[in-house]
């Protein structure tokens, strides 16, 4: 399998200066992942676990107070390896949308409210392509929407005239405009109603199966993860605690936290009470020592309170970061 993106010991913290006192939020803490061609790689976890920050770091949008502390992000594009953080801003910009693009959260207003949709399409096209007239860009946008099965007349609309679901489809259309190798989707279905969610998921899946590209899907919704992703990484408190192909993860979750996540999903015919992890996720600014999950973990050992477990393969393709695995 061909790797398209890989992170090496990636650390990215929010460093806030609260009137003289420095406050560090370890949102992405030592993350190593490899994302392959033609897969949907899911990143799951509760809100505030650092998923979105990981996406930002992968995408190369580190704005203060977020800082890159250590590590690398590698892009594999056209037989070449690009070390993202050693590129200058122009070459970074030129990789965007052609190699890697982005679908924002469904709840965000990412379309410029005072111009028509076609203007946004044109802006994206003429920032990455050269030497075409305005009308040629409009034509391209029209064609692209038709290919995705979206009505081309929405190009003439303003964002506020479209429904939330349609706006999200527009952002997906924008993300696929230049046929990128990899699409990063940050909670693309959040804030949409269930019916619309299905449509959006279907669209993403169709795109993936025709383009054979890669989607990195971040969502806290394990149901969506189960239906879409081929491989899932579970994040907790800035670290990846388990990574496995979807079926494996759902059939045989190793980490107690993953088990909670999966068991909180409703199952058809099962009337027993859904249990979720007791307590709430820790603040990333004040992590407990040792394994960050230990205060909520019913199986916590003495060791868990002092030492951080590493992410290791205990079975082929299945990585876990938990001391319980060592004990077995």
């Amino acid at each position, binding site marked *: 399998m061909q790797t398209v993106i890989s992170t090496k010991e990636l650390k990215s913290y929010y460093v*806030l*200066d609260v*009137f*003289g006192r420095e406050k560090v939020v370890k949102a992405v803490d030592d993350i190593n992942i490899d994302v392959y061609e033609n897969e949907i790689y899911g990143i799951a976890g509760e809100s505030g676990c650092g998923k979105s920050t990981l996406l930002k770091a992968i995408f190369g949008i580190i*704005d*203060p*107070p977020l800082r890159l502390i250590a590590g690398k992000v590698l892009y594999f594009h056209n037989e070449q390896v690009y070390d993202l953080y050693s590129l200058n801003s122009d070459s970074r910009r030129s990789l965007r949308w052609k190699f890697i693009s982005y679908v924002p959260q469904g709840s965000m207003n990412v379309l410029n409210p005072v111009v028509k949709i076609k203007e946004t399409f044109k802006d994206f096209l003429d920032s990455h392509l050269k030497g075409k007239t305005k009308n040629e860009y409009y034509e391209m946008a029209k064609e692209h929407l038709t290919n995705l099965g979206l009505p081309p007349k929405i190009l003439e609309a303003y964002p506020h005239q479209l429904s939330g679901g349609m706006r999200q489809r527009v952002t997906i259309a924008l993300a696929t405009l230049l046929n990128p190798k990899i699409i990063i989707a940050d909670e693309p279905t959040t804030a949409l109603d269930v019916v619309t969610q299905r449509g959006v998921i279907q669209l993403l899946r169709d795109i993936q199966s025709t383009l054979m590209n890669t989607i990195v899907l971040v969502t806290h919704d394990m149901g969506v993860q189960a239906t879409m992703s081929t491989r899932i990484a579970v994040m907790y408190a800035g670290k990846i605690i388990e990574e496995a192909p979807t079926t494996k993860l759902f059939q045989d979750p190793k980490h107690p936290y993953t088990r909670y996540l999966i068991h909180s999903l409703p199952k058809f015919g099962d009337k027993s009470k859904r249990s979720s992890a007791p307590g709430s996720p820790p603040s990333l600014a004040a992590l407990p020592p040792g394994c960050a999950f230990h205060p909520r973990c019913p199986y916590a050992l003495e060791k868990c309170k002092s030492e951080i477990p590493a992410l290791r393969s205990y079975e082929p393709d299945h990585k876990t970061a938990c001391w319980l695995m060592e004990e077995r």
Partner: protein
Amino acid sequence: MKVLKDLLRDGKFAFGFFVLIFLIFLAFLSFFSPYDPYRWNVVPRDTPPSWSHILGTTSRGQDVFWELCFAVRNSLAMSLIAGVFSRIIAILVGMVAGYRGGMADRFLMFLSDSFLVLPLFLIIVLIGSMAKARLSLVSLGLLLGVFGWAWDARVIRSQVLSLRERDFTYTSLLSGARTMSLIFKEYMPFLTPLVFATFIGNVSWAIGMEITLAILNVFRIEIPSLGTMLQWALNYQALLLGYWWWIGTPVVTSVMLFIALYLLSISISEYLDPRMRVQRIGKA
């Protein structure tokens, strides 16, 4: 106290704060003045700054330094009256409009809209020119207060609107708190910083207004204030005659005062807006 310490870290705030403290000190000094500010020819006329008269004397035979102390005191007092009075109106209007909503809201906002749209300055000048002889410092303060609340009432109203949607409003209402006591007890802590920031802006506006009115000769010129000091100097052609200490003193003082108040207000609003704070850290 902690807030003040935090704020003083900001150079802008520190500058504004110390200038203001200095001016307040001057205002207090006026109580120990050896001269009566209303009497003429108490000192030799038109002398440049010297040890006995550190800022020189005027063509009216007054000591510029002691005159300045009275002027600062009166201008500050007048603008405080205007600021406090218009704050009271702004808070009441903003709270009632924001909390009650409906007809009360529409009526009060219409009122504040009209105040924003009407050329208030002209109306103030109209009143001033007709009541000139009777306009005391206090009544000028009150007059400016009546006209200075409209914009701030809007700001407070929108803040109340957003507070109303928060949980504690419903909790207190359900637990039987009386509306008015709810508004003052629960909302005031949130509104205080906002009220304070608009207060500074309003004080600065009132001082500027007083200067303008004095220069237009629609304020009683015998009352010492920053505006009348400037007006006397202009009247006696201090500029042409080269009495720079006479005209320079009120000009420099008021420019410093305005800059100080302005820096205070931006520093405080930056402090209040966490988003701005993060950006400031980001740049550092």
